[in-house]
């Protein structure tokens, strides 16, 4: 579908508003198993995207994604900056301006590969990848994406962390949802709502 500048603006605003509205929830999740900064860091990053929205939204989709990713890299202040920033920057590199479903699926796969390399991580380690990878599978299998994202985020609860700060906790990381997985679910939900015309 064509992603024009009005849709890009809606994507920027909806993803940012959802993350900012969930700051406390994300912080609480990260206080349980990390260092408690994920909510604030993501809020800082997405506030910076909103502040820069005019510049970002004036560009075609690939460049807009890359620009938004660069803002996250520069402004977040924690590991989630390069991780979510790399996700968006890689999507931008791989996505045409008017992507088909196939284009979007392939770009998402390329972005997941880049996030794996950035975080030196694989699925199963209680990270954002544990949402991104199942959603990619659902995209390929034409299964409902919201349900896939929600189930995948919930499935991080019993996982034991072996990457990131939560890995210091070992078995004590079991029983809490991974904050990066939850952020990924929120972002995917926001993107779907915009693309399906629900907001």
């Amino acid at each position: 579908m064509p992603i024009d500048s009005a849709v890009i603006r809606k994507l920027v605003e909806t993803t940012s508003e959802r993350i900012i509205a969930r700051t406390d929830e994300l912080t609480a999740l990260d206080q349980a198993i990390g260092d408690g900064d994920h909510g604030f860091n993501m809020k800082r990053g997405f506030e910076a995207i909103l502040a820069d929205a005019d510049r970002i939204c004036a560009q075609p989709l690939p460049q807009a994604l890359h620009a938004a990713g660069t803002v996250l890299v520069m402004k977040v202040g924690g590991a989630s900056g390069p991780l979510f920033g790399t996700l968006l920057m890689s999507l931008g590199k791989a996505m045409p301006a008017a992507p088909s479903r196939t284009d979007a699926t392939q770009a998402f796969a390329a972005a997941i590969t880049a996030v794996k390399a950035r975080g030196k991580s694989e699925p199963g380690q209680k990270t954002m990848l544990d949402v991104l990878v199942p959603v990619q599978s659902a995209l390929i299998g034409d299964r409902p994406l919201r349900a896939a994202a929600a189930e995948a985020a919930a499935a991080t609860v019993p996982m034991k962390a072996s990457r990131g700060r939560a890995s210091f906790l070992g078995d004590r990381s079991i029983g809490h949802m991974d904050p990066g997985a939850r952020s990924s679910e929120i972002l995917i939900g926001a993107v779907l709502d915009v693309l399906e015309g629900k907001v």
Partner: protein
Amino acid sequence: MSNVGVVIVSHSAKVAEGAADMVRQMVGTDIPLAWCGGNPDGGLGTNVEAIMKAIDMAWSDRGVVILVDLGGAETNSEMAVEMLPPQRQGKVIVCNAPIVEGSVMAATEASGGASLAEVRRTAEELSPV
């Protein structure tokens, strides 16, 4: 300067500055040295833009090693390296070493004119295999 440079990246500006003070006192001023710490708001965290500036300040044509503390400092440092001009990217290495001891060891090795690979090896000798 013709010696390898050292950059110290901590979540805390105080830790980074303190480690840099120790390097200066123990190794002196024969190496380019820069540090940064804290997120863009001044709280605990790391900041890609500040890391890129620190690399620039400690730049040497022989290369630069970066010493980091916890996870995000490493991820953000690797990101900063990838955002450098291509001709500089291959000359910057993020070391797998404890931040204070690694900084002092790297700086000591660098001050003797060692290569980038030698400086890294010396810093990383401190890490458990």
